[in-house]
């Protein structure tokens, strides 16, 4: 009996040591600040305690589809041209249906050729349906569309990851947000420069070069349309420029550009902040990939004397006449661009464009001062709650109260140690979960002690009463723990961020409680009883 108790006691002390290491790690010193520091290194604080930003982003995946079909339109056009079919228009008639392409105006004698051309080259990605008067409609296949949307989502996540890494955010979370469709959850703890971070994340950073079509820009969209005869050709678009795009001091104007870019967002190899050698103004110098550079060289060589525009996120940045062949580099300047903007923009171009633009659906920002206050309040509430419970147990159960308090203390150590080992995040509701664990954990002790008292009252000997008390209370304790853990599990599955943290601490706390209230408490009782004479009363 005696040795048995000793082994169990040693086991308990070992557990205590292991979990204390879990809380503090191996501290660098024993001073208060050193302990606090090592505690903070081990226990991960959630956004609501550390301060930071929680975002839900909606990826506008339709734009990615639209970009794909734009390319398809261009390639159908060139295929038709190659086959000598003229007079046909390829267009996307419905702005709300980016997955929908129409081919019309095909000469009757060539309709079979068009049909077989579409069938052979496009039927793997599109459902092709002939319509009246030699028209065909191509609708993107649902599987292809879903795939493209998923790809856009994955790429967006990747790009945002790279961007936040360059911002030096520690432990960011960037993952698909399961509640919505094509949404992304972004958590950036410890960030305090919110405006800049949001800019960096949200910038599509799609840099493109377009051929300028009209001979001159217009002051507003209205007059541009008027000059074009009230009708914008299907392969053209009107875009606004930044001031100073054409020359020093030129105003913001509208340009007619060819819709399909010469090169686009994925063709950038590198971008660096630099300065204009003549004026000393800040500028971004960018370099194209080899393939895009070759294409660009050919195109510029063939179009000397024409104008081209550099477009960033649908704003024209620069308009220049092509003086000679340009291979693989260019720059963005003007428009009063600042050093900080140049730095950020180069980074954005280096990390690549977003395949589609994003919108913010939710934004929660917790300032660092609120986080610090929350920790303070949470700790105060925990200590007050814990002391109240401990003092009450001492008064109510006297000797056995010490037992319960020891078990409660160990419960807390195991819970925090668990947090340290598992790397789970402690949130403010998580602290509430700790407090609740204290209250609920003591429940098991009360159940057992009340049962022991009952057995004592029924005239049983102390050791028999302790035996019976533990045996009878065990089933009830398991039942009560399971119900609460079921609740916590559902919270864990359905909850986000802070709520999840609550579910974690509550579950860990109750699991630890099974060990402390049932096993540890029993060992303490046994150790106590073994030092008493048989039948000597116990303090409960």
């Amino acid at each position: 009996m005696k040795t048995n108790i000793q082994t169990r006691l040693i086991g308990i002390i070992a557990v205590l040591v292991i979990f204390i290491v879990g809380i503090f790690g191996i501290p660098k010193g024993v001073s208060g600040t050193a302990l606090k520091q090592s505690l903070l290194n081990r226990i991960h604080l959630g956004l609501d305690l550390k301060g930071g930003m929680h975002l839900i982003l909606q990826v506008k995946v339709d734009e990615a589809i639209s970009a794909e079909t734009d390319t398809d339109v261009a390639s159908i056009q060139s295929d038709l041209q190659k086959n000598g079919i003229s007079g046909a228009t390829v267009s996307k008639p419905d702005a709300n249906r980016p997955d929908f392409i129409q081919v019309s105006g095909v000469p009757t004698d060539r309709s079979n050729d068009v049909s077989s051309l579409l069938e052979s080259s496009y039927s793997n990605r599109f459902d092709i349906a002939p319509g009246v008067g030699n028209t065909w409609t191509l609708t993107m296949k649902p599987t292809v569309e879903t795939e493209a949307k998923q790809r856009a989502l994955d790429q967006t996540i990747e790009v945002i990851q790279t961007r936040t890494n360059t911002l030096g955010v520690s432990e960011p979370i960037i993952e698909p947000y399961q509640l919505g469709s094509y949404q992304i959850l972004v958590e950036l703890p410890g960030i305090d420069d919110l405006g800049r971070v949001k800019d960096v994340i949200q910038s599509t950073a799609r840099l493109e070069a377009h051929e300028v079509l009209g001979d001159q820009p217009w002051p507003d969209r209205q007059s541009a349309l008027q000059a074009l005869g009230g009708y914008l050709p299907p392969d053209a678009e009107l875009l606004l420029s930044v001031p100073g795009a054409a020359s020093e001091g030129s105003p913001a104007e509208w340009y007619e550009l060819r819709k399909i870019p010469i090169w686009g967002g994925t063709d950038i190899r590198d971008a660096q902040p630099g300065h204009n050698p003549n004026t000393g103004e800040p500028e971004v110098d960018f370099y194209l990939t080899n393939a895009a550079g070759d294409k660009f060289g050919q195109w510029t060589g063939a179009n000397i004397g024409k104008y081209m525009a550099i477009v960033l996120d649908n704003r024209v940045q620069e308009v220049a006449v092509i003086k000679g062949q340009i291979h693989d580099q260019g720059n963005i300047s003007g428009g009063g661009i600042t050093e900080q903007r140049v730095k950020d923009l180069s980074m954005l171009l280096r990390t690549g464009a977003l395949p589609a633009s994003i919108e913010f659906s939710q934004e929660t920002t917790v300032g660092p001062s609120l986080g610090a206050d929350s920790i303070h309040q949470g700790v105060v509430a925990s200590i007050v709650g814990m002391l109240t419970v401990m003092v009450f147990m001492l008064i109510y159960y006297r000797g056995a109260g010490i037992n319960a308090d020891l078990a409660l203390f160990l419960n807390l150590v195991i819970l925090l140690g668990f947090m340290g080992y598992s790397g789970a995040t402690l949130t403010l509701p998580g602290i509430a979960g700790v407090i609740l664990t204290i209250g609920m954990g003591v429940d098991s002790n009360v159940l057992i002690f009340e049962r022991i008292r009952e057995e004592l009252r029924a005239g049983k000997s102390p050791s028999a009463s302790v035996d019976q008390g533990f045996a009878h209370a065990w089933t009830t304790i398991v039942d009560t723990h399971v119900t609460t853990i079921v609740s916590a599990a559902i919270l864990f599955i359905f909850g986000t961020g802070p709520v999840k943290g609550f579910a974690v601490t509550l579950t860990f706390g109750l699991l630890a409680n099974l060990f402390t209230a049932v096993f540890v408490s029993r060992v303490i009782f046994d150790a106590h009883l073994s030092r008493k004479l048989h039948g000597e009363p116990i303090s409960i």
Partner: protein
Amino acid sequence: MELFHNPRIDWLGKKWYFLGFSLIFSVSGLLSIFFWHGLPLDVDFRGGTVVRVKFAQPPDADRIRAAIDKAGLRDARIQQPYGPAVNNEVLVTLSRSATNESAIDQGRAAIVGTLSQNYSPSAAQNQGKLDLDNASGTALTSWLEQQDPEHLGNSPDAETRYQDQANAVTHYRDADHSGIIDSIGDLRGVVDPAVLTALQQGAYLSGFSVRSVEIVGAQVGKQLQHQAELATLYSLGGMLVYLWFRFELIYGVAAVVACFHDTIITVGAFSLSNQEISLTVIAAILTLIGYSMNDTIVVFDRIRENLRLSRREPLADLVNRSINQTLSRTVLTSGLTFLTVLSLFLFGGEVLRGFSFALVVGILIGTYSSIAVAAPMLVAYQDWRARRGRTASLPAAKKARV
């Protein structure tokens, strides 16, 4: 020490009082939900913008209102004071319609912008200066690098040097003084004298600081609402299944009815007191479902045990006896949990106010319901079966596996 010495209370004899009590509370809650305050939902579910601002001085509601009206935010709601008055905090809420889905943080920008321009009395003379109450660490670092008060020039350690100074300021402000600096002179000893002089010349204190911002688009709000409803239903369902498995269906039904009763009364309490239900409140309610189940299980366990021991005793007496035997435990543990939750309610701060309120109300009601709702239901069920001429005994259930 003992609270109850061998109590012999006839609980079931008071069942009509209990019924009346439960009805009054649940019906008044429901009436409030349907006809009075409705179901006040937090920004999590409702969508909209909430900005929490702390002021250095007791905030002047009229001036805040005037500043916000200037920004054209006519439907803004200003809750003041938010939390204890000594905290000088204000909550500014914009409805969902004012929260534009495509430019979601316009509202926040407008609130913060108009406060810094129109609330601070000395705004005009501080044009172009750095607002030390709202400057981020990064902003402060780059401001210091630009000012270069220690004349470090472009030397490589200038950046780390100023970063340290900026961190000292933000740490002083955020970790130790709740986000507000009373006077720039207070930073003496926190930063180097040269930096302090630069701050005194080129920075100012706007007297307020944005503590947290929450912006929720309509779509996300709906998703969360749906999710919360699902979670609550699954939770109740999960309990039912577990109790069915451990006891008998009727025990499960009685316990779930009791939990449902607790949920309605707790939610009703939110409506009656016009407090908003947030995501964490839902978490609290789900926890309550588990907790209220605890108490019920303890009583049921005892009923089951007694049923096995004495099959002759009338069920009503047996249930009474079981409740009385567990009364001490029920009151003690609920009391202790209540105390911890109360300490959370009193000291846990504004963010957890709704959460701890739900727990405070729910623990009281949950304890009451396991005695006054769940157990009497078992008896009522047996009476009903007896009247229909079926076997009168309540299933003692499978033998508990110990």
